[in-house]
C-alpha cells in the first residue's frame, strides 16, 4: 500500500490479487447475495483507491480494507432493509429462506453453513466474518464496530455456538482436523 501511495502503478494490482477474493468471500457471506456482493466488492476497492492517501502505515492494511468492506456491507444492508419495506419484501425473503435439510442433502456442508451464517444476527455475523475471514483480532473488531471488546467476544461465542448447533442439527459432523488457530 505504501508503494501505491508513492505512485507505483504495479502495487495496486498486487493488492487486488492478494485480497480481492477474500474480500469478496467476506462480502458474499455477509450479504448472502452474489450480485450485491459484487457491487459491494467493487465499491470497497474504489473506496480503497480514493482513500489511499488517507491510509497510514500505523494501521494494518487488512484491518483498514475490511473496515471499508464492512462499512459497505452495513450500508448495503441498510439499503436492503429500506427496500425490504417495499412490496418486493415477501419475494426477497422467500428467496433468502432456505430448507436446511434439502440444502444438506444437496451439497452437504456449504449450504448448511452458508445458511447458518446468514441466519446469524448481523452483529454476530459481522464479528464472525471479520474474525474468521478477515483475521482481524477482537480488539480491532471492537474498534471497527465501536463495540466493547468483551461484547465482541460474546457475539463471537454466540455466533460459533449457533453455527455449531446448526451444523449438528443438519447432521453434519465437523471434519476431523483438530484445533484451528
Amino acid at each position: 500500500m505504501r508503494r501505491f501511495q508513492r505512485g507505483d502503478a504495479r502495487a495496486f494490482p498486487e493488492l487486488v490479487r492478494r485480497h480481492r477474493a477474500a474480500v469478496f468471500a467476506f462480502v458474499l457471506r455477509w450479504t448472502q447475495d452474489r450480485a450485491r456482493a459484487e457491487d459491494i466488492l467493487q465499491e470497497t476497492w474504489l473506496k480503497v483507491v480514493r482513500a489511499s492517501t488517507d491510509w497510514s502505515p500505523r494501521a494494518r492494511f487488512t484491518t483498514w480494507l475490511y473496515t471499508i468492506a464492512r462499512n459497505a456491507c452495513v450500508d448495503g444492508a441498510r439499503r436492503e432493509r429500506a427496500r425490504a419495506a417495499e412490496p418486493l419484501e415477501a419475494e426477497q425473503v422467500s428467496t433468502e429462506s432456505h430448507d436446511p435439510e434439502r440444502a444438506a442433502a444437496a451439497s452437504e456442508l456449504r449450504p448448511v453453513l452458508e445458511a447458518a451464517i446468514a441466519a446469524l444476527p448481523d452483529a454476530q455475523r459481522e464479528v464472525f466474518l471479520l474474525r474468521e475471514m478477515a483475521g482481524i483480532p477482537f480488539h480491532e473488531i471492537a474498534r471497527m464496530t465501536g463495540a466493547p471488546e468483551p461484547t465482541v467476544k460474546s457475539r463471537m461465542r454466540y455466533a460459533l455456538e449457533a453455527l455449531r448447533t446448526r451444523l449438528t442439527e443438519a447432521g453434519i459432523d465437523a471434519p476431523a482436523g483438530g484445533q484451528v488457530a
Partner: protein
Amino acid sequence: MRPPVPTHPEDDRLLELAYGEVPASEARALRQHVDGCARCRKVLDGISEVRTAFRSIPEEPAPEKGLESLLAYGEQAAARARSRRGGLRILALLSAATAFAVVWLMLPGSSRRSDTLVQAPATKPPDVLAQAEVPREPVQGAPARDEADRVKDAKENEAKTLRRLASPKFEPTSRAEQAKEEQPSPGRQAGADQLSKQKGVEKLDAPREQPKLAEAPAPSPSDHEAGARSAPGELAGALGSAGGKAAVAGSSPVGGTGAMTAESTAGAAKKRSATERADEGTANRPSSAPSSPPAAVAARPPVAAAARPENAATEDKAAAAADAVSAPAASPPAKSASKPVPPMQSMRMGAGSPEKQARLAEIRRQLETARGDQRKALLMEKCEIEASLELGPDAVLTCSMVSREFPGTAEAKRASELARGFSVQLPTGSER
C-alpha cells in the same frame, strides 16, 4: 507469566486461545488446563469444529466483472500520486530557488547592485562612444572624452544662456538649415525614443533643446564635436539610469534593454553623424553654403564660459580649442579677402561686409598670438564688428570672451552691453 490455571478459564479466554490471541506462555498454561478439563475441552472443540467446517468450504472466486476498470482506476490514481509527488518536488525546488533568489537579492544587495551598475555602463557605453566618435574629425586641444565630460558638467549652467540664445535674433542663418536642424533623422529619433523610455520625458526635453541650439548656426567639424559630445553624455546618463533601473529590477533587462538602447542610440549617433557629414559636405560647397564656420564652431564654448565664469581655466581650454578649430576654418575667409565673397554670404553680412570680413579674418589671425591689452583690443573690435554685422552668435561669443578674459574692465562692460542687445546677459566681472 501467569501460573497454570487451577480453575476453569473464562470462555472469552478460551475463545482467544482458539484464535491464537493469547500470549505463548499463557497459552501453554491454558492448554495444560484444557488437557485436564473436560468442560473446557468441549468448549474449545466446539469452536474448532465450526472453524474447521468453515475453512473446509472452498472460497468463492472473485468475479472478473469490474476488475479491469478497477485496475485502470488504480493506475490513474498511481499516476496522480506520482504527478502530485513530482509537483510537490518541483514546488519545493521552486520555493527553494525563490528563497535563494530573495536572499541573494536582499543580503548582498548593495554590493551586487553597485557591481551591476558599474558593469552596465562599463561594457556598453565605450562601444557607443567609440561608434559615435568614429566619424568625428580630429580636434586639437583636449581629448574628446574630456570635452564630453566638460560639456556634461557645464550643461546645467548653460541651460539659461542657451534659452536666451533661443531668442528670435539667434535664428539659424537660413530657414533651410533650421528645418534641417529641427528635423531629427529617423535614427536619431529612434535613439531619442529609446532614451525617452529610459530617462523619462523631462530628462529628454532639456538635452533635446541644447544640441539644437549648439548646432544651430551651421554644421562643421566642431559641430560634430558638439553633437558627439552631447550624445555620449546623454547616452551615458541614459545607460546609467537604465542600468540602475535594471539593476534595481534585478533581472535580465540589464543586458537586454540596456544593450538595445546602447545599440540603437549608437545607431542613431551614426546616422546623425552621417547626416551631419552630408550637411557638412553641402555647407562646404561655396555656392550653396550660407554658413559661417567660425561662428558655428565657436558658438558653444563661450556660452559655457558665460554661464560658468568660475571655470575660467577650463573655459580657456575650450575657447582655445574652439579658436584652434575655428582658425583653419577661418582661413578661407581670409583667403577670400583676395577672392570675391560668395553673393549669399555677402547678402547675409550686409553692406561693406567684404572689408569688415577681411578685418575680422585679420583679427582672428592676430588673436592666435595676441596677449594682454592687444588681445583685449582685438576681441573688443571683433565683438563690435560682429555686432554691427548682426552676427548674433559670433558677437555674443566674442563679447563673452572679452567679458570673461578681462572682467571688470570698460571693455567687458561694453561687451556686455553689446551682448545685451542680443538678449544675452554677460557677466562683466563686477558682479563676481
